Every structure is written in C-alpha cells, then in structure tokens.
C-alpha cells in the first residue's frame, strides 16, 4: 500500500514539475540568450546521465575501457546523425569488441 501511495506522490510531484516549468517559461518572454543557456543546461543534463550511467556500468563489472569505447562509438555515429539503430549498434559493437580485447 505504501508503494502505491509513494507512486501517487511521485506522479503528482513530477506532473507539477513538468507543467510548472513549461507554463512558467512559456508565459514569460525570455531573452534569446537565456533560452540559449537553458538549452545548454538541458544538453548538460543528458551528458550527465551518460556519465552517471557509465559509472554504474563500470561498478556493475563492465571494464572501464569497454564503457569508454561504447560511449565513443555511439558519440561518433550520433554526431554524424546516424539513425538511432546505427548509433546504438556502433556503441555496442565498439564496447563488445573492446571487452573482448581487454579480456
């Protein structure tokens, strides 16, 4: 029962974050430079998720060089606007090959 209550709290709180943010920032006309900064912040959030998930993978036993190779492979493929399948594939292949090499 406490799980369901916690889930309801999370649902309501998250909804407030999503709606509040969009409504607040779309109701105020911000200078272009501020919008630029916000986009930089959002990109940094995604990058921080890469870093924290990489750390989790390494702590789960995946060799660090394999994690780095996987991220580098996906970054190169995605940088050139490869499809999502190609980007994921490039990252996973690079990671797996490195894992084989480092044993």
């Amino acid at each position, binding site marked *: 029962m*406490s*799980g*369901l*209550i*916690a*889930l309801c*709290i*999370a*649902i309501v*709180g*998250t909804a407030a*974050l*999503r*709606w*509040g*943010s*969009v*409504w*607040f920032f*779309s109701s105020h*006309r*911000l200078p272009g430079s501020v*919008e*630029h*900064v*916000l*986009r*930089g*912040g*959002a*990109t*940094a*959030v*995604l*990058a*921080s*998720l*890469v*870093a*924290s*998930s*990489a*750390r989790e*993978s390494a702590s789960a036993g995946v060799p660090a060089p*394999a*994690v780095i190779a996987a*991220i580098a*492979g*996906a*970054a190169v493929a*995605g*940088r050139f*606007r490869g*499809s*999502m*399948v190609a980007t*994921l594939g490039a990252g*996973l292949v690079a*990671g*797996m090959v490195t894992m084989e090499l480092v044993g």
Partner: protein
Amino acid sequence: MRQALGPGPRPQSSNRWVRQGALHAAGMLPAVVPLGLAFGSAVAEHETSIPVAWLGAALLLAGSAQLSVATQTAEGSGALAAGAVAIAINSRFVIYGAALAHRFRGQPRWFRWVGPWFVVDQMYALVEGREPANTERNRFREYYVTAGSLLWIGWQLSVVAGATLGPSLPTGSVLELIVPVMFTALVAPSLIRPNQAVAAAAGGAVAFGSATAGSVGVLLAAGAGAVIGAVASSRAVR
C-alpha cells in the same frame, strides 16, 4: 488561363508533419524499448503488481523514478520519503521543460496542458535534435503530439512486456552497456554546435566527478553545463 499559371505552390500538408513525427518517434523507439523491458523486469523483481507497474509507467512516464519508488518501498522506506526521492530524480524535467518552453508559447491551452506530459529525455532529444526550430506552431503541435503518443505507447508496451517476461529476458554485459550508449545517442546530435558540445563536456565531467550522485549531481551538471556553454558561446560570438 488557369492552366497557364500552373498549380502554384502547394500548401504544406498536415499529414506530412504527422508522418514526420511518427517516423522520428519510430526511429527513437530503439532507445525506449530496451529501457522499458529492463525497467519492467526490474519492477517485477520488486514484486510490484503488473497493474501498478503499468499505472506508474502510464502516468509517471519516468523509469528511473518509478524504479526508485519500488526499490525504496521494498526496503521499508516511508511513502513520503520514497515519493520525494522520485520527484528529486525527475527534477531534470524542469530543465527540459524550460528549454522547450518557447515551442509552447502562443499555443492553444489544450496543447499546453497535454504537451508537458510527454517531456522526457527521449522527447527532448527528438525535438531539439531532429525537428526544425522554425516550424509553424500548428505544425509543431501535430509533430509533437504524434511523436509523443507513439513514444508513450512504445514505453507502455515494453514495460508490460518486461514485467511479464521478466526472468526469461537475457542478461549480461551488453545490457549493462545499453544505458550509457542510449544516453550518448540522445545527446550526440546536439554536439554539432560547439557551445552545446562544451556544455555537454562540462555537464558530463561534473556528473562524473560529483561526489553527490543522483538528482543533485544532475542538477549541478546542468548548472555547470549551462554556464560554461554560455561563456563558450559568448566568446565564439566575439
């Protein structure tokens, strides 16, 4: 006379934007389905019933936060504490919402109510990475609602599949690599712009080096990335 003038410029078809939204969302599904399967399987391990898992997947639309709720309540945390941690994990949506807000400006009320629901990592990456910035408002609505709905459906189906199949899903090192690779795939298209690349590098470095893991680390990274990216951008302009 009419024939001599020819057909003239054709108005942009509404279907085109719906189709484009569907195509882009379908392309993003490989970044949604593995996470949904893994998340559904993990939630099932915590003995969360499938209807509750599905309810959370449908309304919360945030795997890591929902998994945190399941883990913490299984470990005996109170409902308020577990809910608060989940909200803190989702605080990154404030940044996405703020960055996407200019697309919601001048839109009808219904869209400003429905649209924020789809604000997740994949949707932010899709809109900022693939959809042209100067799209007309009504075309953007068609694109956004189509893409958001398809990603939502993909997430629900993969969570239910993960919760149902559970132990029969494969495990191993490849799966441990999927999450960082998936987030890299989301951020990579933004790296074309130098200031975004600087922001990403700063955010990644701060998150990696941050002693405070989780949501605080993510927010610190967002702040550092935003400031350093803005400084880099202003230097480039000079």
